[in-house]
């Protein structure tokens, strides 16, 4: 089974801090994704990557950046955390683009105070 591991389940940060969310997958998937999930809004794509060092903006990239230096690892960076970035962050990976299942991590619930 594919395993996607997010480094933290819960995180509390202060406004203005730089925050790193780490994600590792063990199935050699090319594609990796970061979503945020908010009540009533469903899942919204922040960034995705289809190869090492490649990244593409999703629907809501503002205030975020990403890094993919190795195939198995995809990091989400909040350059200067704000309270409106309090959310559940979900990392996922997939084998093909557009027509194969996404494998999700268990999520990181980030609170920015």
């Amino acid at each position: 089974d594919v395993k996607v591991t997010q480094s933290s389940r819960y995180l509390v940060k202060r406004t203005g801090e730089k925050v790193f969310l780490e994600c590792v997958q063990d199935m050699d998937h090319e594609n990796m994704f970061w979503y945020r999930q908010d009540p009533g809004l469903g899942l919204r794509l922040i960034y995705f990557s289809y190869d090492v060092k490649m990244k593409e903006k999703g629907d809501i990239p503002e205030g975020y950046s990403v890094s993919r230096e190795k195939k198995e690892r995809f990091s989400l960076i909040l350059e200067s955390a704000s309270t409106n970035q309090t959310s559940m962050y979900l990392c996922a990976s997939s084998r093909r683009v557009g027509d194969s299942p996404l494998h999700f991590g268990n999520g990181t619930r980030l609170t920015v105070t």
Partner: protein
Amino acid sequence: SQQGEEDPQALSIQEGENATMNCSYKTSINNLQWYRQNSGRGLVHLILIRSNEREKHSGRLRVTLDTSKKSSSLLITASRAADTASYFCATGVYGSARQLTFGSGTQLTVLP
């Protein structure tokens, strides 16, 4: 942008009953997927149905797809308390790097 929209938003049934959730979408798709999310956890993939398929089964799950109506349904038969979760549909387009677009989900509660 959200494309899949689930209906109803919430559903409460007794154990042993069947649960049906619906999903509508707006544009052409290559496939539609259903996911399940237990409270506070990540999503788990349940089933993928391609645009040239009309029905697919997996255990107690049955998914239908009607591309002419741009809709899909997920049926869970003989539900159990452990089926309590949120269920999401997601639409995909082959080759689209934006992958899947998710709806807001149906919260299913199965009462023992």
